[in-house]
Each structure stands twice: as C-alpha cells, then as structure tokens.
C-alpha cells in the first residue's frame, strides 16, 4: 500500500500547491511529450533533474521518493528486457550504445512517473475536479473522477483490515509458488470487491436522497483563477515545448557516451 502513498495528496501551502491545476496538467503533458520525442539520454537526464527543484519547493521529497521506489521494480524490468532484447537483436554484439539506449528507455519511464507523482502529490482532488468542471467536462464525469480518487485511500485501508482478518484465520500470503501466491489473494479480493460494490450502491442512494443532478446548471463556491505565477509557468512550459521541438528538428543531440568521449 506504500506505493499509493507516493501519489496521495496531503494538504499544504507551497507555491507549487497553489498553482492552477490546469497549468500543472499542461506541464505534465508537455513533459510527457518531450520525453516521448527524445530517446537521447542527455535530454532525459535534463528532464529528470529539471523537475527536482519542484519537488523541493513543494516539500514532498519523502512521498516523492516513495513513489520512485514503487516504480523501481518496473523500471528495472524495463531496463533488463530492453538490454536483453537489443543484445539479441544486434546479433550478440555488446556495445556501450546498447547499454545507453536501455538506460534511456528506463529513464523515459522514470521521468513520466516523476511528473505524474509530482502532479498528484501537489494537486488536491477537489481542485482537480474544479479544473475539469471549468474545462467544460460534464459534471457526471468530474464527479466520477473525484470520487474515484477520493476512495483510493479508503479502499487501501479496507484492504489492510481484510488482510488482517484473513491472516487471523491462518492465511499465509507469502506461502507457496508463484501461482499459489496469486491464489492466496482470492480471500482478500472477494470481500474487497463485494464491499466496494456495496459502498457504491450506498453512495448512489445517498446522492439521490440529496437530489443529485436536480439542477442542470451548477455554480461553485470556489472558482479557479489564473494568477501571475500561473502565467509564468504557462510561458515557461511553452518555451520548453518550443525549444524541444526546435532541438528535435534542427540540432543533433549527441549521445552520453559521445559527450563523455569529448
């Protein structure tokens, strides 16, 4: 469950938390796009390091490290498969560039996880819902989205209780071979799914008894407004995108091994 806490929002007031969620989301998309545009390791390293100041300004280092640790298993899997397959593909000739491209692909994954982690760690689900609403997404979808986000920690806690209850009946999750271990989770998953369905039905009834959807045109107590910091970030974000496109089209990006040889 600790992987979840690497993405779970905790209330705080830092310049990053106060930014408009829409702009932060655009930043995530741009980082995503740039990471996909480049396969050259130096650029990806710059992208990775470039986000670190945000982590420190938002003071979410601890949670951020937890999300990175959560991603490390998949990252190492990506590294190993890429290295193995490119090794086979290049008819068993090992070169430093094989190694570098495997690292680059892993780095691309890490950069994506990093940006999403920062986004979710610094954006409250309520703001996210507001942002969606003000972007003219139908309210039903906004509500479904914020509810889903809101219930992740609740479900995580419930899963923990169910695990305790089944362990108290002698269930050993870590026992047996791979298939057996997966089967061990059935006594956890069934009560969890049943209670999630039951909870959703109760939520639906509660919503209806409070006249959900009675008025088509909704108003909000809070409204998101762009401030100076938001405009600065927006301009910076576009600058990054434009620079990235320019470099991609007109500049030759050297590989890291090439850079090191200089």
């Amino acid at each position, binding site marked *: 469950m600790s992987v979840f806490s690497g993405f779970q929002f905790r209330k705080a007031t830092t310049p990053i938390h106060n930014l408009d969620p829409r702009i932060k989301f655009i930043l995530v998309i741009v980082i995503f796009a740039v990471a996909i545009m480049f396969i050259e390791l130096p650029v990806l390293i710059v992208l990775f390091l470039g986000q670190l100041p945000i982590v420190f300004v938002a003071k979410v280092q601890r949670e951020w490290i937890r999300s990175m640790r959560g991603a490390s298993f998949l990252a190492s899997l990506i590294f190993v498969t890429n290295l193995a397959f490119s090794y086979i593909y290049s008819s068993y000739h090992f070169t430093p560039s094989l190694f570098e491209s495997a690292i680059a692909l892993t780095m691309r994954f890490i950069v994506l996880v990093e940006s999403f982690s920062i986004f979710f760690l610094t954006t409250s689900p309520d703001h996210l819902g507001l942002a969606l609403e003000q972007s003219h997404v139908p309210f039903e979808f906004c509500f479904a989205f914020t509810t889903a986000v809101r219930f992740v920690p609740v479900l995580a806690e*419930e899963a923990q*209780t*169910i695990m*305790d*209850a*089944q*362990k*108290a*009946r*002698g*269930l*050993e999750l870590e026992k047996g071979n791979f298939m057996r271990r997966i089967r061990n989770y*059935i*006594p956890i998953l*069934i*009560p969890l799914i*049943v*209670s999630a369905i*039951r909870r959703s039905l109760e939520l639906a009834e509660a919503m209806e008894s409070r006249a959900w959807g009675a008025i088509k045109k909704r108003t909000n107590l809070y409204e998101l407004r762009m401030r100076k910091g938001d405009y600065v970030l927006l301009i910076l974000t576009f600058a990054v995108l434009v620079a990235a496109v320019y470099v991609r089209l007109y500049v030759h990006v050297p590989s890291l091994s090439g850079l090191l040889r200089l």
Partner: protein
Amino acid sequence: MIEVKDVYYTFPNGFEALKGVSMTIRDGEFIAIMGQNGAGKTTLVKHFNGLLKPSKGDVIVDGVTTRETSVAKLARNVGFVFQNPDHQLFCESVEEEIAFGLRNFGFEEALTKRRVEWALNLLDLVEYRRTSPFLLSGGERKRVALASVLAWDPKTVVLDEPTIGQDHQQKEKLRQFIVQLNSQGKTVVVVTHDIEFVAESNPRVVLMSGGKIVADGIAKEILTDEQVVARASIVPPQITQIFLQLADLGLPTNVIDVYDASSILREYMEAHLK
C-alpha cells in the same frame, strides 16, 4: 497465558496508539476491554495474535514472544473475530467458510468435516450450510464469522465489538454463548463499548484511555467507580446510576446486576415500609 510487558506501539504514520501497556491474561479468564474511541483497545488486542508487533516492549503468548512468531502460528491458539463479518466472508457456502481456517491450519479432511459439523451445530447454522454467506442477514453473518473461528478450537478467543448492530435478543443470545464458552474453559477477551452488555456478564474489566490502562479489576468495582469511569469517558450502567443517586438512603453503590438490585430494594422496602 498472555503477558503484555510495557508495550508501546506507534503506527507508521507516527501516531502513538499504545504508551506503556502491561497486563496479564490468565488461562480461562473472561476480560472486557473498554474505553472511548481511539483509546487503543483494538490496537492492543491485535498484539495478542501477532497482527501487530510492539514497537517497544514484549507480548508473550504461552511462553513465546510474538516478535518471532508468524500470525498463522499464533492464530492457532488465539482466535480473533473481527468487528465486521464482511471483511472476512468470501466462500460460496457457509460450510466452506468455516472450513477455510481449518484447511489453513492443516487439519485432515475427516477432522475438518467433524469440526465444521460441530461449529454449524454450535451456532445454529445447520440449515444454512449450503447457503452463500452473502445471502444471510447481518446477525447470521456475524454467527458465521464466529463459527469460522471457533471451529479450530483456539484456546483464547478475541471478539472485537461483538454486539454492534444487533438487536437485544441477538445480543442476549450472544452474551449467554460467550459466558458458556468461558465456563467451558476458554479464555475470552471482548472489546466493547456496550456497558450494559458488560454489566450483565460481570467479567474482569480493563479500562483504557489515551493508549494506557487506567483501571483493571472486577466489573462490579470498576463500573461503579464514578471517577474511574469518567476518565475513560464511559457512563456507568443505568442500574448503577440509580444506586449512585440513592446513596443517601444508605443503600450500597456498587450494584451492576438487575437481580442484585431488585433483592436489595426488596429488603430495603420490607425493612422500612412496615
């Protein structure tokens, strides 16, 4: 025997739930652990079968420290019935549900069958043996959960809030059942808010507040001590409240039992009204 030795427990999020708890539970005792929400009751009993390991101090179950023993091993001797049966029911039939624990503990198939039969009879569930637990009523589900733990005959049974959401009749049945279990030699630990439930069964009472034990003794003394009870944010049983208000008549104040109360009042009236 369960020995709790100066146990501290801090949750991963930094909340210190137990702050130096020491107690001993002898074999065959009936104990009610009481206190307000967040007093650390459930945290404490989760140490008895090793679901939680102390941050500091030791919990020793029958001479073995829970630190180095797996939950599965401890659970064989310390059965734990959770508050909400929906957190554990998952099988297709009541029978299967009861057999789950037995299979985990490696009971032979023939013995498993016998124990399931025994548990079905014990909790009056024979007619539901092939029914899905999800189709049963709340009270019945609670009984299935109880049967699924009692089936492997643990020496100690821990019940977390057994009376929540049950009507009076169900509660009385459950109380008699628990008292019966205890008289047959099982150690019973009940975590509860239900003061009337405790008053009627007169167990040893352990009062908790803010992660510490504030009182430990027989129910009759603990529940009638206004100051102690107030410290744990509990209201004395209604019978006790009446006798506390009648103290100026020279009546005893340590009454929690309805039958005791009526005989005391009868005696008083016979002596004064003639």
